[in-house]
């Protein structure tokens, strides 16, 4: 799970709740524990793009869950209320994103406008932030859209405009929403796992091709056969054992094909 947060005050409750450790020497404040990572981007489009791209570069595995979390203004919701962005637009841009909502949750779904500066005018049913559009655009380069989400807690609205906002409240509001945030983190992580290919396939492919002699075409054929073997319930460890003494790549492909041939019919 990659969390991208604009401000330290927004990040603190998350860092504390998950016991994240700070990594020294990073160009941006970066916290982690096991597969949970949090980066503090700073405010605005350029900063959030850079922070997201930094995480993408360091952890290039595809289809990881990504969450942009922070505070936002809203035209209708109360302060302290959380919403998920279902439509993200940006002032001055025609590009619009619709993060597919696959997580069942009580959190309301709202439109969100990413602005270049804090908004003082509010439209009904509209949220306002300064990062989500750029975050979504960047994270979707490496992850399927369902796994990239934006959660915001309302910091200001027409009744309590941004001029009355006190930064220290950000931590309190985020902290109050930790159970719901945790639900999203858990669900998105599970969703990512559900579409993750069996990592043993690529490991086996790598071990076999390292023996040498595999052209690009034969490597692709081998990868395809190993995926089929896995789909057909073949034990990959046992399969590797059967291939130990098989000579050329051509013979190996034929051997796997032979092993699978009797299993290709649905039971």
């Amino acid at each position, binding site marked *: 799970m990659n969390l991208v947060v604009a401000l330290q005050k927004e990040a603190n409750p998350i860092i504390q709740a998950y016991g994240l450790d700070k990594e020294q020497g990073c160009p941006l404040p970066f916290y982690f524990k096991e597969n949970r990572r949090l980066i503090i981007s700073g405010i605005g489009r350029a900063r959030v793009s850079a922070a997201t791209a930094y995480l993408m570069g360091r952890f290039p595995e595809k*289809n990881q869950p990504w969450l942009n979390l922070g505070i936002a203004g809203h035209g209708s919701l109360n302060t302290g209320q959380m919403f998920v962005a*279902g*439509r993200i637009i940006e002032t001055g841009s025609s590009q*619009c994103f*619709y993060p*597919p*909502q*696959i*997580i*069942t949750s009580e959190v*309301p*779904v*709202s*439109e969100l406008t990413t602005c270049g500066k804090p908004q003082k005018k509010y439209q009904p049913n509209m949220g306002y932030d300064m990062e989500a559009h750029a975050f979504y655009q960047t994270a*979707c380069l490496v992850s*399927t*859209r*369902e*796994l990239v989400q934006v959660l915001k807690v309302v910091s200001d609205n027409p009744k309590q405009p941004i001029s009355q906002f006190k930064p220290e409240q950000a931590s309190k509001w985020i902290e109050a929403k930790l159970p719901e945030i945790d639900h999203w983190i858990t669900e998105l992580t599970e*969703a990512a796992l*559900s*579409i993750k*290919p*069996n990592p043993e396939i690529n490991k086996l492919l790598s071990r076999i091709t390292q023996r040498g002699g595999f052209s690009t075409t034969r490597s692709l054929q081998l990868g395809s056969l190993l*995926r*089929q*073997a*896995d*789909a*057909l*319930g073949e034990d990959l460890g046992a399969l590797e054992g059967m291939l130990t003494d098989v000579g050329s790549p051509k013979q190996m492909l034929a051997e796997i094909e032979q092993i*699978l041939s009797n299993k*290709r*019919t*649905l*039971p």
Partner: protein
Amino acid sequence: MINSIYLENSIREHPKARSILSRFPKANVLPCEHYKEVFNPAGQNFRLQKKNPALILAKQTGKLLHSIPPSYGVGGSRNFYFSHLLNCLYDCRYCFLQGMYPSAHFVHFINSEDFMSVIKQTTEESEEPSWFFSGYDCDSLALESITGFAGEFLPFFSKLPNAWLELRTKSANLQVLENQTPFDNVVIAFSFTPEEIGKQTEWKVPPLDSRIRAMKKAASMGWKVGWRIDPVIDSTDFKKRYEELFDSLLCNLPIQQLHSVSLGAFRMPSGFFKKMEKTYPSEPLFAGKLEKRAGMMAYEKNLEKDRLTTCENLLLQRIPKELLFSCKSPVV
């Protein structure tokens, strides 16, 4: 069931859109300019969306009627399909929709008046009967409670005697048929696979016995009924399983109430197949005895021929030849 609804701005005030929205007071409703903004972007995962698909309410402004592939008809010479809905409530692993669409959201085109107008016009262009198939890009009846499609189109077709409507479905809920007096130019076409194969490939689909009961009920009400044995899926005990299926269908439907039977092998464009295989890498069906022929993925030629011939022979032992139609794959 529906948590998110996207609504095209141009139909915000359309009575049908308002009626559907009123049935989902708790749903999150989001505006969009055009359904393709939500439905078409690359980088979506069909499998993840299938867990919780959204409903998109839209107006079809593109082509409303399409010709069906040659040989896919059930007796007519003028054959068209139309789609009031894209995507299906059910989740059949063999279904080409998983490979064809970038998204699993349901797109419901609410401008039925435009579909009706073009259907009427097309019918009037010829004295030959025209056939209109409604279940190519969706199940015709599974989302009836939301779309009200059959409730609206059955009365329309009842007044167009030279136009035939096929409602193709795996639904067991036929309440809409009970609310309408049966008439001749409509076929309720039920798709079937043997139970053991269905259990491995058809998710969220009503059990076979309840669908057979639904078929029996539709026939007893006076509707013409069809069997759609498409796609034929290879499995162990193939002949026995299909024989049992055909016997139980026939047991529950007097032959005189059977309009047509269509038969087709598992096949699809290789591009669709590639996407499906990537979406469901652990699916045994996709690791079956398949091959690519002329841009299509299908069972190996001899296997396909054998399985289709087996089904054809089994059917011809039970039904008159003129009721059987083969959906021949364009694969050579």
